[in-house]
């Protein structure tokens, strides 16, 4: 009479025999799609190349002392004055395009990932705050978001450029300013849905403190859709940085990103010196496509509606 008499529930294994964590399950499902896996591998390789740029690049394209405009505008494979080969050609400053691309990747990916992570953090905090507090605080945050989304990106970038000056960090700030609202809105939408779920009610019923509910229960469950958005957004941020550079408000010329290189090469489009924008363009394309492939598939995996 003291404990439960028959405990037949103890023996049978759970429905799914797996003992994997949600993360493991994610990995398994992800790996199942070859295209997405390919995308991931490509991206990892690209990221590695970017990280190792100082080691593998033939030249430090940011060091003006090693550039020589007499080596300018060489076609791919041509030799420089002192016999060094320029595999992908050089721009008019005598900058080796291969090195510039590797270093440009560093900046592009750094800016893309960096700004996305920061914007995500800010957006997450704002969105959760808005969704969970509701009322006028919610309204205030959402109006801020409206305001942000109504501003043309170039104007924001230009204002920040004027106030802060030019630099990679400034571009990051501009990109964060451009993106956070988007996350805030997504998080808020998710949080409003999650907030109504019974497990949140259960947590409240258990008398758990407010902060625990918001950060321990609500936040982790708002994250997955956000991660998908973020993956895509990294790609978007890279492209956006390219557009800002095109419009003349991007990174400094002496530290070119991929976008800057393309924008520079844009001037050479008609001149027959295709390599100045072609190779950076292809690199950007591959990077962005690989990230999007990953994100796309993540979205499919994480979308509960499509899960059988």
């Amino acid at each position, binding site marked *: 009479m003291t404990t439960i008499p028959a405990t037949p529930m103890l023996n049978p294994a759970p429905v799914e025999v797996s003992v994997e964590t949600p993360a493991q399950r994610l990995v398994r499902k992800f790996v199942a799609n070859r295209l997405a896996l390919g995308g991931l591998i490509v991206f990892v390789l690209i990221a590695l190349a970017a990280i190792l740029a100082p080691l593998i690049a033939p030249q430090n394209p940011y060091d003006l002392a090693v550039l020589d405009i007499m080596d300018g505008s060489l076609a791919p494979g041509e030799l420089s004055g002192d016999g060094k080969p320029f595999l992908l050609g050089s721009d008019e400053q005598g900058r080796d395009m291969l090195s510039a691309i590797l270093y440009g990747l560093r900046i592009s990916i750094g800016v893309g990932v960096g700004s996305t992570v920061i914007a995500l953090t800010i957006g997450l905090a704002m969105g959760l705050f808005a969704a969970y507090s509701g009322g006028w605080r919610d309204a205030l945050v959402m*109006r801020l978001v409206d305001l942000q989304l109504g501003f043309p990106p170039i104007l924001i970038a230009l204002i920040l450029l004027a106030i802060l000056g030019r630099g990679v960090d400034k571009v990051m700030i501009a990109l964060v300013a451009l993106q956070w609202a988007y996350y805030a809105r997504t998080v808020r939408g998710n949080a409003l849905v999650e907030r109504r779920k019974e497990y949140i009610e259960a947590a409240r019923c258990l008398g758990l403190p407010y902060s625990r509910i918001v950060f321990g229960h609500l936040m982790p469950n708002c994250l997955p859709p956000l991660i998908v958005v973020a993956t895509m957004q990294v790609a978007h941020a890279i492209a956006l940085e*390219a557009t800002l550079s095109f419009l003349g408000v991007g990174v400094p010329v002496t530290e070119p990103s991929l976008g800057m290189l393309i924008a520079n090469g844009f001037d050479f489009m008609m001149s027959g010196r295709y390599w100045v924008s072609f190779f950076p363009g292809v690199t950007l394309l591959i990077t962005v496509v690989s990230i999007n*492939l990953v994100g796309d598939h993540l979205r499919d995996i994480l979308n509960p509606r499509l899960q059988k």
Partner: protein
Amino acid sequence: MGYVINRLLQGLMVIAVMAVLVFIGVYAIGNPVDMLISPEADQAEIQATIVRMGLDKPLWEQFLAFINGALHGDLGTSFLYNEPAVRLILERFPATLELALAAILMAILVGIPLGVIAGLKPNGIVGRAIMTISILGFSLPTFWVGMMLIMIFAVNIGWLPSTGRGETASLFGVQWSFLTGDGLAHLILPAINLALFKTSLVIRLARAGTREVISQDYIKFARAKGLSEPRVILVHMMKNMMIPVVTVLGLEFGSVVAFAVVTETVFSWPGIGKLLISSIVHLDRPVIVAYLMLTVMLFVTINFLVDLIYALLDPRVRRKESA
């Protein structure tokens, strides 16, 4: 009614805050006079110009003057063009509107069929191919694609003109390109350029919508009723699938109109995006402010229209009839 006023005030606050930010922002970027005046002008002339433009007053005074004007329906006069900012914008608006409409139309005509196909066979080769290609639409920088289009279709093949709006014809007192053959030819490339991103978006929305709707009971029920497959897809599925697509596209339309900057720059399309860029370059504050205010109003209007269409498509949203 309290609600009405409250929300109205909130909306006005947004606009006001935006105006303040633009004032401060433009002030921070630089002095418009530096950009406008001839470099040979002497100090007296510069000073006279500053006074003429009212830039000698403290910023807050300029702002109050602006607000005062705005309350009387005057959003200021362009520093650069010496014309009412609103008129400048409205003059250019039809061009952008036309471009955006053409782009959205293209996105729909191409995107929906592809998206539906991809959604019906999500794991087939065709479906995957469509999705992979649609990633390109997201990935390529607009300016790069625009230039490529010009290179290929205007320069190399020479089928289409590369720049400008071409001949226009008047309808409702407004000049439109699509009414003339020449204008239409001018419209095609920029519209494709602008449509690229949206097409990818539509493909994705249509695919997601298709996948979601196709697994619904009412589709199965429609099949169980013995309906033909075309009817199931075209009537039962499409109508439901279109609801989110139309909503998102409607909202996107706003951003297409408001921010067609890059395409208009590349194709020298005389729309408001180009005006915005040149206003920003010249620090033409009245135009920037008016532009943003009109953009906000445009967004509101578009949202209203979207809701109307939404209601048209989704009877559940219509006002409750007495049941």
